[in-house]
């Protein structure tokens, strides 16, 4: 299929859906809603990868899409659901900042990523710029989520959302080898397993997953 304006527009629209899901993650107040939104974001990511595979004529990107669909939209959310239920975590998310301020910081980060992307890609086509700006915004929103949430589970979701942004950047750029994406996907899966074990250990010891309660145990704060 020849790459037309329409196919780029579709790619950007799907990319924007991923970004919107990133904003929704910041807006959610309940753990299960956070997990569902994350699953939706991964679904949008899979659609983005599949669409890129279609317009770039790159079959290996279908594998990326399948990985995103299987692992991130299904296995990871289901596993985290199970963990949350198993651990009996308090399901309201504690935020470090109010939701309104977090959203505003999010828009500022999107503006920042656009300001960053514009000079770097001065020679690139406007079409690449837009995808790169979108992917970078998703990454920064994931970081913001990790900063503004006190609960370990939502911090992990922030980490995974950040990684979704990386994949989005990778599929938008032409010629990213498949092995890189597969290794990223598996490292995330391993990371999630490790996080799961850590959740159990933290809770066993401190009876909570609220990380601010752990700060009193830090050596530098006597």
């Amino acid at each position, binding site marked *: 299929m020849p790459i037309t*304006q*329409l196919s780029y*527009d*579709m790619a*950007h*629209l799907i*990319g*924007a859906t991923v970004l*919107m899901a990133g*904003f929704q993650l910041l*807006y959610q107040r309940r753990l299960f809603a956070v997990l569902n939104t994350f699953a939706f974001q991964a679904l949008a990511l899979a659609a983005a990868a599949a669409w890129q595979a279609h317009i770039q004529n790159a079959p290996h990107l279908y594998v990326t899409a399948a990985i995103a669909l299987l692992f991130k939209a299904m296995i990871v959310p289901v596993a985290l659901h199970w963990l949350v239920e198993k651990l009996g975590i308090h399901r309201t998310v504690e935020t470090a900042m109010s*939701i*309104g301020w977090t*959203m*505003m910081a*999010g*828009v500022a980060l*999107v*503006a920042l990523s*656009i300001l960053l*992307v*514009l000079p770097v890609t001065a020679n690139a086509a*406007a079409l690449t*710029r*837009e995808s790169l*700006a*979108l992917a970078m915004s998703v990454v920064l929103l994931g970081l913001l989520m990790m900063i503004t949430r006190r609960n370990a589970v939502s911090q992990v979701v922030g980490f995974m959302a950040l990684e979704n942004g990386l994949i989005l950047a990778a599929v938008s750029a032409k010629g990213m080898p498949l092995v890189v994406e597969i290794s990223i996907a598996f490292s995330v899966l391993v990371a999630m397993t490790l996080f799961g074990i850590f959740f159990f250990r933290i809770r066993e010891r401190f009876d909570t997953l609220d990380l601010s309660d752990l700060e009193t145990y830090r050596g530098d704060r006597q």
Partner: protein
Amino acid sequence: MNAAVWQLVQVFLVVAISPLITGWVRFVKSRLNGRAGASPFQPYRDTYRLLQKEAVVAHSASWVFRAAPYVTFTAVWLAAAIIPTFTTDMVLAPAADLIALVALLGVARFWTALAGMDVGTSFGGLGASREMMIASLAEPAMLMVTFSLSLISGTTAPAQIIAFILGGGVGIEVSMGLALAALVMVAIAENGRIPIDNPATHLELTMVHEAMVLEYSGRHLALMEGAGMVRLTLYMALIGAIFVPWGVAAPGGSVVEAMIGLAAFLAKSFVLATALGVFETMIAKMRVFRYADFLGGALLLGLLATIFLYVSEAV
């Protein structure tokens, strides 16, 4: 000549159809709730009944209370009349402007809030204060949507925006998607639908719009409720006309084209009304203190729509 005829059709169409649309939303909701529900034509009967009844006015009410229904209804009616729903060939099309539209709706809201406070009951004041809070949050978002639309098409007149989009001036644009999402959120807030306000409730703690019109009866109440129905139709027509403009007839088109536009407008309105009914059934009303988050989200979406225009070089 045609332009004048179409304008007249539009003026009466929006009023004629709006009770049906409101009735349809209620019908869809009651069916989804497992109730038989009143016929979609029930709002016509309600309006007729209210018009027959005597209007009772409180002793403490001033002329503001009596004038407000007429001013509110006229402002909303005028706002609805200038939206090119089925053809852009209308006499008032050059005067139609999204910013003027926001201003007209602002006038209607201002008078409703004044009337709410005029009688001096606590509910009226409470409703008015909440309505103003919602308005102060929703209006910036609405203007942000207007800005991004005008940056894309180079105009704030709906008729020209429609002509621009129909002329293939804009593809599938990220900004358009974001602006649509923001406009839908604003529309929900402005019309007092769930999750912002529950149009079916008379529960003290949750009502906003109903609290302001609580003292009205008879023809005054009919006008106030009519204004609400026309406002709902207006927002549906606006969303349908700008984001799904296909079917809208252009100036110089034949009568057949205008008829197709009319059918398309009716179809779009019913799809949107059904969607609203389904959405309202699925969602719960949110706390008053969360309005700021919801409408702040709409504002931020509008802002993002504008920001992304600069990346995609659509400007």
